[in-house]
């Protein structure tokens, strides 16, 4: 096929939304290179899902089906995709950078003696794939250096699902050779731990605190600011890892995704994993001591300064403004 193959993600018959962002990326890459774009869906039975994909501008849609692919396992997916890739021979394999892809795609690439170019935020002519280094402090251009196939995963929110082009595609069934003995791990049911009484996604104003707060006892000043603003209190992962705030207040790829009217980030450097959870916010204000902190890349208003001075002053000014 010597084209682009996009590997879509589904669980229990429901799409992972990021799949369509990867599909948009795959279509754009194929258009740039003047080659075909196809897509693959993996599962026990994916009939409804491939029917939906048959209405997209794709050469082929592969329904990769097997009873042993009902629940996700890295072993099952790697074996199934390895045989699909060997048969179809794409030059580029594009995936959404989900937790599931992180679990199997590096092993899949290894089967082809390749390294996955992961968490890509842009594509340029070449093709050059851009990814972030040092928690977002730098960008880096990566290129395929040998014959490939080239494996690429795209970061959430980089490409728009709405940009997927409509069209018509042929559906092809693909049944991989798969034995139960090849699947070495046994996945259990999905479960949630926290009571999830806090729905940050509904909040219109969020005050969020990060590593810069230093110690648990300092969180009080951020709580006071949130109270003065009538805001929900949120945090970046390290704060919840330390147990300073409950996990259910975490914003980012492993926590909640929010899009409030105002996101006020206090002492948050803005690691990629945090930014993907809040970059849809309408207005972002960042207070940080490091002027090079990546949070300022997405901030509308920035304050470079000591949060222990700025935050109490702001709380005081807010309370005064309210009268």
């Amino acid at each position, binding site marked *: 096929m010597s084209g682009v193959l996009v590997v879509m993600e589904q669980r229990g018959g429901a799409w992972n939304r990021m799949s369509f962002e990867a599909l948009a990326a795959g279509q754009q890459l194929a258009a740039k290179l003047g080659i075909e774009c196809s897509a693959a869906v993996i599962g026990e039975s994916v009939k409804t899902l491939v029917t939906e994909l048959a209405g997209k501008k794709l050469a082929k849609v592969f329904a990769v089906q097997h009873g042993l692919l009902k629940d996700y396992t*890295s072993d099952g997916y790697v074996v199934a995709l390895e045989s699909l890739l060997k048969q179809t021979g794409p030059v580029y394999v594009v995936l959404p950078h989900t937790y599931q892809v992180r679990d199997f795609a590096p092993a899949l690439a290894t089967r082809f003696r390749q390294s996955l170019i992961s968490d890509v935020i842009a594509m340029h002519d070449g093709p050059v794939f851009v990814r972030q280094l040092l928690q977002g402090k*730098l960008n880096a*251009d990566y290129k395929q250096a040998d014959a490939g196939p080239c494996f690429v995963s795209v970061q959430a929110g980089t490409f728009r699902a709405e940009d997927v082009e409509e069209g018509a595609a042929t559906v092809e069934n693909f049944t991989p050779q798969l034995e139960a003995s090849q699947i070495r791990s046994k996945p259990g049911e999905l479960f949630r731990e926290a009571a999830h009484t806090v729905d940050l996604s509904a909040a219109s104003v969020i005050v969020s605190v990060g590593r810069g707060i230093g110690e648990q006892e300092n969180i009080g000043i951020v709580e006071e600011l949130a109270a003065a603003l009538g805001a929900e209190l949120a945090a970046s992962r390290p704060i919840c890892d330390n147990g300073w705030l409950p996990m259910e207040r975490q914003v980012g790829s492993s926590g909640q*995704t929010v899009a409030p009217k105002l996101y006020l980030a206090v002492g948050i450097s803005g690691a990629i994993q945090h930014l993907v959870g809040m970059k849809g916010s309408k207005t972002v204000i960042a207070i940080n001591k*490091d002027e090079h902190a990546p949070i300022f*890349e997405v901030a509308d208003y920035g304050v470079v300064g000591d949060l222990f001075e700025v935050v109490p002053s702001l709380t005081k000014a807010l309370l005064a403004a309210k009268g």
Partner: protein
Amino acid sequence: MKILVAIKQVPERDAQIGITASGRWIDESDLNYTINEPDAYALEEALQLKEKSGGEVVVMCAGPERVGSTLREALAKGADRAIHIEANDLGERDTLGVAQVLAEIAKDEAPDLILTGLQSDDLGLGQTGVVLAELLGIPHATLIMHVEKTVTGLRVKRELEDGWFQHVEMPLPALLTIQSGGNKLRYATLMGIKKAKTKETKTLQAAAAVSPSIALERVYLPEKQKETEMLTGTPAEVAAKLVEKLKFEVRVL
């Protein structure tokens, strides 16, 4: 259980990053280095498993001479032995190349369990562990919060997106990439630091690099995604300016 922990040394989190004249990598001359934070959680998990059910914890780290300090710190925290894989050209190797270096050592050590962090704080590719497992032909699981030894192998708690989790069972030997937050990190004690001096650190040469499948061509500062208005002044002045913005621009007051 013999546990091998693969750790990486990375620039400190608050480091001011400069770019070399060639534009291909960061200027390392004035940087301070530390253990990659997710790898610190992998080491912590290994130490706790050993405390629960006995065994040995071996740490390995590839890199130039400077990684010795990170290995010594791991020994001071409680690891039993350290392996320094000397390589001055890690930047020339891709993920597969680095994992191949680690796989050579892992084969010789033949541990029951290999632990590493889910990703590095510098390159952030998030793949070395999975590739290492694939090269060794052992099962793996990623983003692990909790590890439990069972009669037949392991039962691990894997983190998924949006606050979901899943238990996965697997036989040994296996490789796990550890997510942060599952445990509290320990500090090295004075006694630990003293003891570390008597522990073995083996230095081995990394195999010669093969040509990589992907190449890092250029590093640069990210373009701004938004026009950021920086507010300056004393804390009181900044606060007053912010209140103005919140009232008239953002309109949340």
